C-alpha cells in the first residue's frame, strides 16, 4: 500500500507543478500591465501600486512565479479586487452551496444511471436496452442550461410547482431548500446519469458473462440475487472509480446550472469574477478545482487498489 501511495504521489507532484504553471500563466495572457487590469475599472493608483508590490510585478517572471507559488502553498490565493476579501475565504464561503447541489446531483445520477445500466445489461438487446441507450444519448446531447430553462418553463411557469430561481439554506428551511434545489440537481445529474449508465452497462455485461456468475446460476440461485448480490457488487467497483472522473463534468455543469437557477455557489462565483474582471478569483477557483480533481483521482485510485486484490498483490 505504502509503495503504491509513494508511486502515485511521485506522479502527482510534477502534475501539480504544471497545474500551477498553467494557472500562473493565465495572468500572462492579459494584455499590458496586469496591475492596471486587476485594479478594475476605477484604476486607483494606490491599488495599482499595491498590486505591483504584492504581485512583485517589477521582478522577472520566474521570481514572480516563485513568490506566487510560495503564497499558494501557505493558502494565500490573493485578494478579490471587487469584494476586498481573501480569495480562499470567498471560495470556502461558496463551497457548501455547490457541494449540496453536487451531492444531490450525484444521488440522482446514481439512482437513474446505475438502475438504467443494470436493466440495460440484464435485458440486453430488448426494448429496455434500447430505451436505456436512447436515454444515455439524450443525456449526453442535451445542453444542461437549455434543459434547466425548459424545466423552469414546465414546473415553474406552467405548473407553478417549483421556484424558478433562488436559494434557501437547508438550516433555515429544509423544505424550501429542497424545492429550490431539486430542478438544478436533476439538470446537473442528468448528464452524469448518462455516463454512469454506459459504464454500468458495460461493467455488468462483462461480469454477467464471467464464470462465477454462471456458477451462481448453476447452483439455482434466484436471478435477482445473482444480479444484485453477485454481479452488481463486482461491477460497481470500476463504475465508482470511473464515476470519480466525472467530477470535472459536475463542476463544469455546476457553473451553468447555478447561472440558470441563480444559485450563489462556486460556479456563480467564477462567472461573477469573470465579469467583474476579478482575475485572482478566477485563478483561485481554477486552482482549487484542479487540486480537488487530482485529489479525488488519487482517492479513487487508492479505493480501487484497496478493493482489488490482484493490484494489491502486484504492489506487495
Amino acid at each position, binding site marked *: 500500500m505504502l509503495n503504491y501511495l509513494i508511486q502515485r504521489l511521485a506522479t502527482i507532484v510534477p502534475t501539480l507543478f504544471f497545474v500551477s504553471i498553467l494557472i500562473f500563466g493565465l495572468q500572462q495572457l492579459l494584455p499590458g500591465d496586469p496591475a492596471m487590469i486587476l485594479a478594475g475599472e476605477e484604476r486607483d493608483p494606490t491599488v495599482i501600486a499595491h498590486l505591483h508590490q504584492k504581485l512583485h510585478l517589477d521582478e522577472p517572471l520566474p521570481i514572480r512565479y516563485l513568490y506566487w507559488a510560495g503564497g499558494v502553498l501557505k493558502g494565500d490565493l490573493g485578494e478579490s479586487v471587487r469584494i476586498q476579501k481573501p480569495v480562499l475565504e470567498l471560495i470556502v464561503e461558496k463551497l457548501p452551496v455547490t457541494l449540496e447541489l453536487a451531492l444531490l446531483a450525484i444521488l440522482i445520477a446514481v439512482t437513474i444511471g446505475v438502475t438504467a445500466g443494470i436493466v440495460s445489461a440484464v435485458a440486453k438487446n430488448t426494448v429496455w436496452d434500447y430505451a436505456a441507450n436512447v436515454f444515455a*444519448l439524450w443525456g449526453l446531447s442535451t445542453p444542461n442550461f437549455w434543459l434547466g430553462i425548459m424545466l423552469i418553463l414546465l414546473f415553474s411557469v406552467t405548473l407553478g410547482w417549483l421556484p424558478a430561481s433562488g436559494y434557501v439554506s437547508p438550516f433555515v428551511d429544509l423544505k424550501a431548500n429542497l424545492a429550490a434545489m431539486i430542478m438544478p440537481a436533476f439538470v446537473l445529474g442528468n448528464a452524469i446519469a448518462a455516463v454512469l449508465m454506459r459504464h454500468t452497462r458495460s461493467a455488468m455485461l462483462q461480469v454477467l458473462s464471467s464464470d462465477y456468475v454462471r456458477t451462481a446460476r448453476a447452483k439455482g440461485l434466484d436471478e435477482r440475487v445473482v444480479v444484485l448480490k453477485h454481479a452488481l457488487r463486482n461491477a460497481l467497483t470500476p463504475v465508482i472509480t470511473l464515476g470519480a472522473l466525472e467530477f470535472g463534468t459536475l463542476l463544469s455543469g455546476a457553473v*451553468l446550472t447555478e*447561472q440558470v437557477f441563480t444559485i450563489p455557489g462556486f460556479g456563480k462565483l467564477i462567472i461573477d469574477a469573470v*465579469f467583474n474582471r476579478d482575475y485572482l478569483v478566477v485563478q483561485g477557483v481554477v486552482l482549487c478545482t484542479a487540486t480537488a480533481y487530482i485529489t479525488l483521482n488519487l482517492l479513487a485510485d487508492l479505493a480501487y487498489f484497496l478493493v482489488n486484490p490482484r493490484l494489491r498483490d502486484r504492489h506487495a
Partner: protein
Amino acid sequence: MTTAVATPATIPREHSPGRRALARLARRRGAMIALGVVVFFVVLALLAPFVAPYDPLATSWSAVRKAPTAAHWFGTDEIGRDVASRVVWGTRASLLAGVVSVSIALAFGVPIGLAAGYLGGWVDALISRMTDAMLACPFLILAIALAAFLGPSLTNAMIAIGISATPVFVRLTRAQVLHVKVEDYVEAARAVGNSHLRIALRHILPNIVPPLIVQATLAIAAAVIAEAALSFLGLGQQPPAPSWGSMLNTAKNYIDNAPWMAVWPGVSIFLLVLSFNLLGDGLRDAFDPKSR
C-alpha cells in the same frame, strides 16, 4: 491429379480498411441519419443568406415577442428580430466553433502526442505530466478561464475550447503511437534506414487516423456545446451577432411570456450535438467492429 488454380474471377476483391469501414458505416441506419442531419446543418450554415427569411439583426418594434405565425415561423424576440432567421445564422457560429476548435486541438495535440509516443523517455514524461495538468482542470472551467483572460469573443472562445480539448488528442495519439510503433512494418521501415521523421509521418501517422477521426467527431459535439455554453455565459459570440447560446441567455429572461425564444435554439443545439455523437459512435463501430 488435378490442381485447383484460382482464376481472377474467384479471388475476392480486396478493399482497403478505410473502404470496408465506410461500407460498415453505410449499413448503420442511425449513423447515416445523423450524417444527413449534420449535412443539413452544414448546408443551412452555408446558405444562411438565402435560407433565412429575414435579416437576423433587423429589429421591428411593432413585432416584439410575437408568438410563431406564418410570417415568423419561430416567433420574434425581445426587440422584434425573427427567431428563425437568427437560428439559421446561429448555425454558422456553432459549426464554425466546432470545426475550428477541434482543428486547433488536432493541430497541436497530434504532433505533440506523436512526439511523446515515438520519442519516449524524458520527452514523453514531460509531455505526459503537462497533459495530466491540463486534464486536471475541468474542460469548461479551463475554457471559461482562458476566454476570460483572452477577452470575450467568438474567436477567443474557439481558441479557448481548442486549447482545452488539446490534451485529449495528445493522450489518444500517444497511446495509439505506443501501440503501432512496435508493429513489424515500423521495425522494417526503421531497418531500411528511414529517418525518424519519415517513420513517424509516413508509417505511423496514417495508421492511427481512424481513432483520431472518431475522437474528432465526438469532440465537435463537445465543442458545439462548449461554444453554446460560453455564449450563454456571455463569453462567446457577442450580441447582436446571432448564436444559439446567446439566444438562450436572452430567452431565459423572457421564459414566462415568450417561451418560443428558448425552444428552437435549444432544439438546434440538441439535434446537432446528438447527430455528431451518433456519427462518432457509428464511426467507432465501423472502424472497430469488435467494440460493438
